[in-house]
């Protein structure tokens, strides 16, 4: 059938299984918005307050559902406002398609009003991007974008569509939803070598990242752990990959990881890394990282193998399929000595843990835990509150921790919570800080307009806590520009946006606020007081090793 480019664009989104898209209109995308109006019964468009919020929402939607998130923006500033959101998705390998309008092809390259070379700008932060020069290529380019975003190691893809391409007419035939490229296991010989390595080790440690979640390999992971009698740890991006209360799970590793997890990894003689990438926040000083261990690394992206740390066995392949082939080659063993040692580390962690009463960050998150349903997504912003959430929040199901790991984007949380809520239809929690929340709180307007049941828990300590923590430890307590001392009344702010809110100074008040918030149909903000001198512990100083771990702050 003969349709305009903008109709083709929207029809192709529907054809590809989109039920909700996030965006913001403007001059060079106005035709697409006319088509969104036309097809409004089939595709729900969420208008955000800012394009950045829309990008984070598409990202949060993708993280929570595993489907491709879609964001639409106009040319120029609309497109550049997506950049932080696209980069966030890129660093965390989140499937996203970003669609931007642009000036007509006849005006491209003339510095027209609101013209920006967005394919040039986003080249280093997308898996790939497209400039659609003619309408006959539009539908297939979009299909290719969906395929690329979801194939292999997922990531964001941008499609730039000039205005005249949106107007031009062309034939459109609906097609089936594109499937991601078929995944494959690693090479047989590599799997055999890895199996030999695993079978001959004495202190194995399984370490997984976001790639395990993307590959949906939880079951295989647990089978492997049971078979070789090994503890399990994860990277920050792996949080919610296995249930927090899994008996073998030691929690998160890395700069602010759980002590038992980090020390077990340090003492292991074989690390089986699944869909993780040994980022600097994980390894600290690379020369001193896991020196006793041979590393078996399974990742779908071959470029991650031996990128930052040398691995003994690099297996390029899908984690799930590779584990399925590996498992039959693995001998079942019991390792009472090693698991005893791990138990000892857990006891040590418990003894050194924060067992204080009152309104401590740990107790705040644990109070929140009491209100969670097994499927509640928890989004965060970036900073101390993010680490406390990763450390103490309880997760039962996968894809329920929605947080910016690689890029560490303050301002990510609220948009992401909106996307996660709309993707899952579950009551959703945002844990944020007063610093991060200040960056993109305008999206409260979106949450109110869509009447989304989002519980916003602002851990308000009046400072930029994570930077302040570094200043305390490494910069002689020179609190340069980290004391906010703002007069913002977050409860009134929530009310001004049309949401509800309350304040909590004690755990009892917090519990009460949470009860109210969880029974509220729309967004509800809790301004939760936290002391400014609380630390995220343990901490491996940047570039440090297990020898430098800080578990307690002395006065």
């Amino acid at each position, binding site marked *: 059938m003969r349709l305009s480019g903008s109709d083709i664009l929207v029809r192709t989104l529907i054809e590809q299984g989109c039920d909700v898209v996030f965006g913001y209109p403007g001059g060079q995308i106005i035709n697409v918005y006319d088509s969104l109006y036309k097809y409004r019964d089939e595709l729900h468009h969420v208008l955000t307050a800012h394009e950045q919020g829309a990008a984070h929402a598409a990202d949060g939607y993708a993280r929570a559902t595993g489907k491709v998130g879609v964001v639409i923006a106009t040319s120029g500033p609309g497109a550049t406002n997506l950049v932080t959101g696209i980069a966030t998705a890129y660093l965390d390998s989140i499937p996203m398609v970003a669609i931007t309008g642009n000036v007509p092809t006849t005006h491209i390259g003339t510095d027209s009003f609101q013209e920006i070379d967005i394919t040039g700008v986003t080249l*280093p932060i997308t898996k790939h991007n497209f400039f659609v020069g003619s309408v006959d290529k539009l539908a297939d380019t979009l299909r290719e974008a969906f395929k690329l975003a979801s194939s292999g190691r997922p990531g964001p893809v941008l499609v730039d569509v000039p205005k005249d391409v949106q107007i031009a007419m062309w034939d459109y035939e609906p097609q089936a939803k594109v499937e991601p490229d078929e995944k494959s296991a690693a090479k047989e010989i590599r799997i055999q070598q890895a199996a030999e390595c695993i079978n001959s080790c004495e202190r194995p440690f399984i370490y997984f990242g976001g790639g395990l979640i993307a590959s949906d390999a939880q079951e295989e992971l647990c089978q492997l752990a049971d078979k070789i009698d090994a503890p399990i740890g994860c990277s920050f991006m792996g949080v919610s990959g296995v249930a927090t209360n899994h008996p073998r799970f030691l929690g998160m590793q890395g700069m602010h990881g759980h002590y038992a997890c980090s020390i077990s990894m340090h003492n292991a003689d074989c690390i089986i890394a699944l869909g993780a990438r040994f980022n600097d926040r994980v390894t600290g000083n690379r020369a001193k990282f896991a020196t006793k261990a041979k590393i078996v690394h399974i990742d779908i992206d071959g470029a991650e193998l031996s990128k930052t740390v040398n691995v003994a066995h690099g297996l*390029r392949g899908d984690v799930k399929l590779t584990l399925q082939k590996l498992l039959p080659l693995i001998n079942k063993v019991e390792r009472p000595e090693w698991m005893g040692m791990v138990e000892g580390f857990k006891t040590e962690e418990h003894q050194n843990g924060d067992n204080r009463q009152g309104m401590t960050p740990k107790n705040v998150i644990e109070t929140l835990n009491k209100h969670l349903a097994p499927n509640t997504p928890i989004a965060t912003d970036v900073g101390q509150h993010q680490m406390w959430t990763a450390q103490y929040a309880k997760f039962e199901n996968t894809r329920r921790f929605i947080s910016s790991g690689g890029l560490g984007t303050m301002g990510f949380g609220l948009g992401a919570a909106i996307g996660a809520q709309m993707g899952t239809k579950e009551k959703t929690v945002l844990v944020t800080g007063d610093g991060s929340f200040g960056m993109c709180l305008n999206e409260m307007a979106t949450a109110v307009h869509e009447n989304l049941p989002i519980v916003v828990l602002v851990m308000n300590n009046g400072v930029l806590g994570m930077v302040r923590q570094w200043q305390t430890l490494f910069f002689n307590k020179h609190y340069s520009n980290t004391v906010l001392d703002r007069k913002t009344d977050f409860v009134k702010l929530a009310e001004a946006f049309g949401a509800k809110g309350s304040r909590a100074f004690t755990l009892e008040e917090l519990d009460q606020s949470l009860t109210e918030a969880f029974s509220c149909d729309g967004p509800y903000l809790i301004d939760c007081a936290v002391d400014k001198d609380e630390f995220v512990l343990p901490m491996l100083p940047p570039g440090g090793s297990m020898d430098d771990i800080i578990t307690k702050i002395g006065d």
Partner: protein
Amino acid sequence: MSRFTVAILVNNQFGVLNRVTSMFRRRQFNITSLTVSETESTQYSRITIQSEGEEDTKQQLINQLYKLPDACSIIELNSENTVSRELLLIKLGNNPETRGEITAASDAYEGKIVDYTKAAVMIQMVGDSRKIDNFINIMRDYEILEICRTGIVSLERGDETIRNVTLF
């Protein structure tokens, strides 16, 4: 640190060179020579890149190239099995005192004089990079006005072609 040469068959599309070199830039891989040309098929262009680094750098570079959707085929060209050539144009001052030495050197290197005026002489030379480097070094004793060289073009010996290589 050693030099290595990689040939990449890429989709013949607008901006593809930018995608390849952008990856080199942001991961700080050094390019010592780069050539791009059309191929026997209008569908593909061929990029020949010479770079330098340790083995792990080389492996990482190749792995990152594989991730570019426009890269269709990639081979590392090892020097024993490859014919590599560069074209040099060099313009020198034409002085009676040095003219004889320059033309003698050019003859020894199988160069060809392609322009000759009272003030200047231009020599064209084809060869592998080392030969070109050596000739330029000899010419440094004389008055070099300007130099332009193409960068490396390379093909494997025998009937193997880059199109037979499938992406892993």
